[in-house]
């Protein structure tokens, strides 16, 4: 069915992926995900570490608001180069439509516009809840409404009776609300329009979570959202004045689907993907697994590996790549089973952190990966690593080996590492590019004929589940 082959095996035995109109991206590859303005600053700082044509993932609906912030005007040409030299995945943070993260969702819905968020919160303070909800784009309304109690509490506002009995864990039910089920078109159109103004972009639509207990209506809805996005992308592709836009078939799967008593939802998902990509033209398959680490802690990793092997085989028959957003080292492990790309946010997280809670001094410095150990360290652990290694980390081309300032004798984190924001932008987040080096080594291993290079790398690491 696919008119274009989006995966081809090269003479060295590596898969070469085409993302939008950018061909020849050797797999497996790491895709850094920009979560917000700070991550973009860090990525620009570390842009020399990116491989030519290395795909970049952005939160589609906020991307315009992020890149056009005043602080980026002085690096406008750098952003222009980034956009023209790399294909972009437009990925929507699906956890915002599933878990209770009300402040993140409100920020996202208003595309980071503080003025609009401010008006929304003013209305909440005035206890005009209905008017506040109506400020939001239609699609977002039921999702914010479903977490109103948590939102009001996080803002220290009074919770009225109408929201008092609201229980957490029900956010995903908003997908059934008419405002989401029908109101997504404007949201998707906006994503497609912005993607069309990039040189090469691939749209990955937001979809509801498929859990072990959910019925087939969730799979139907998932296909509906994907189908609509595919049509938008095809229209852009067909438009000579637009940039090159393609779309991936996206499934958001809960880790519980890989448990033994899963109501055969794993089979349903595979079959749905198979039918859909045989009948319609997609440019790839994206699979987001929520709480992926629990697959290992519950001992279901073999079921997941079988699922991935089947899925990548199905996709390969249609010449499509399979990528795993928000998968980190677990995604890296699954490259041995045919996955073409793994990714995570530049702070190392697999989801957006819930906002509104306090943050301690150490946490302000975030975490960063240690090459070879396949594990993230916090500021305290980093101090120990640096002490053992003369104040330096492994050499990673294009990013610094040591923090902007480092004083091992200082008593406070600020004294040791300087300003936390500066540290994150100029060191912590740029060091995320270690995954690019790791992916390159996996490819080198495959070229040499090494079987399962990811497993071999990870089993020698300090990773809590994969070593």
């Amino acid at each position, binding site marked *: 069915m696919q008119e274009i082959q989006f995966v081809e095996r090269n003479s060295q035995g590596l898969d070469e992926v085409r993302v939008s109109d950018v061909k020849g991206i050797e797999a497996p590859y790491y895709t850094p995900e920009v979560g917000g303005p700070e991550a973009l600053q860090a990525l620009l700082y570390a842009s020399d570490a990116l491989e030519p044509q290395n795909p970049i993932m952005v939160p589609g609906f906020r991307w315009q608001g992020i890149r056009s912030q005043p602080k980026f005007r002085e690096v406008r040409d750098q952003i222009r180069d980034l956009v023209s030299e790399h294909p972009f995945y437009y990925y929507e943070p699906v956890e915002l439509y599933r878990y209770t993260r009300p402040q993140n969702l409100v920020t996202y819905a208003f595309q980071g516009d503080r003025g609009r968020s401010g008006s929304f919160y003013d209305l909440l303070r005035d206890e005009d809840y209905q008017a506040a909800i109506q400020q939001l784009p239609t699609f977002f309304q039921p999702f914010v409404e479903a977490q109103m109690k948590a939102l009001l509490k996080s803002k220290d506002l009074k919770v009225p009776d109408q929201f008092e009995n609201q229980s957490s864990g029900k956010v995903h039910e908003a997908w059934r609300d008419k405002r989401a089920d*029908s109101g997504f*078109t404007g949201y998707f159109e906006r994503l497609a329009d912005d993607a069309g103004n*990039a040189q090469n972009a691939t749209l990955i639509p937001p979809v509801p979570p498929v859990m072990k207990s959910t019925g087939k209506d969730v799979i139907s809805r998932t296909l509906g959202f994907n189908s609509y996005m595919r049509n938008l992308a095809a229209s852009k592709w067909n438009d000579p004045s637009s940039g*090159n836009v393609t779309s991936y078939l996206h499934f958001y799967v809960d880790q519980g689907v890989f448990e033994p008593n899963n109501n055969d939802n794993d089979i349903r998902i595979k079959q749905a993907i198979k039918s859909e990509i045989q009948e319609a033209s997609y440019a790839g398959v994206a699979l987001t697994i929520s709480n992926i680490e629990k697959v290992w802690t519950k001992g279901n990793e073999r079921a997941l590996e079988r699922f991935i092997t089947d899925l990548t085989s199905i996709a390969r028959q249609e010449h499509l790549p399979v990528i795993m957003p928000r998968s980190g080292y677990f995604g890296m492990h699954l490259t041995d089973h045919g996955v073409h790309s793994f990714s995570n946010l530049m702070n190392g997280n697999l989801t957006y952190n819930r906002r509104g809670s306090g943050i301690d001094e150490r946490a302000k410095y975030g975490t960063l990966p240690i090459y070879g150990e396949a594990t993230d360290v916090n500021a305290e652990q980093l101090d120990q690593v640096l002490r053992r290694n003369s104040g330096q980390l492994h050499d990673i081309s294009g990013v610094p080996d040591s923090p902007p300032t480092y004083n091992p004798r200082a008593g406070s984190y600020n004294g040791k590492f300087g300003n936390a924001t500066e540290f994150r932008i100029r060191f912590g987040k740029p060091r995320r590019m270690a995954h690019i080096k790791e992916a390159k080594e996996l490819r080198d291993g495959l070229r040499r004929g090494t079987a399962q290079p990811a497993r071999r790398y990870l089993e020698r690491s300090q990773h809590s589940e994969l070593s």
Partner: protein
Amino acid sequence: MADPSDHQADEEPEISALELGSDLEDPLDDLSSDEPSVEGFGDDQSDTLTRDKVRRAVRKYGEDGITVSEIMEVTDLARNTVDKHLTRLMQLREVYRQKRDKQTYFYYPNGKPLHSFGKERIEDGETILDIQLAKGKNDEMFFHLTEKRFSLMEGETTEGAVIFPMSSLDEVFQKLQQFADEVDK
């Protein structure tokens, strides 16, 4: 008198993701079945999809010219919607029109983009020129040049376009060179 069909597309049927995706039966019901995919849905309010409908109509039926009324008929869109998108498609040189009698305009496709050849790009300061090959009537090849500008807010937006047949490339180049030579003198 207003054409009643003008308002036809203004009352759009509402889309539902569930209905869009429900064409696919439960895969476990019949693992061997080749169910049709989720294809096609009613008109919606998407400018992108609507313009593509008009574009496809002209490409598919416009080889010998197609009128606005005929486009309305095959797309089920209102006249003002068709007019709006035809105007934009003409600005972008995807479509051109000719008057065949005193009142009737006929619309023709300029060529379908050939993605297999990719795009070439020239960047000079703020100006970006995208060059794409297109195949037109009788398999004639065209160059489609799109002028774009970049801004942080909007990304790359199209300002205008030019199309000319590949067969006239030498002549076009020669004329441009003549201009350049005259300026140098």
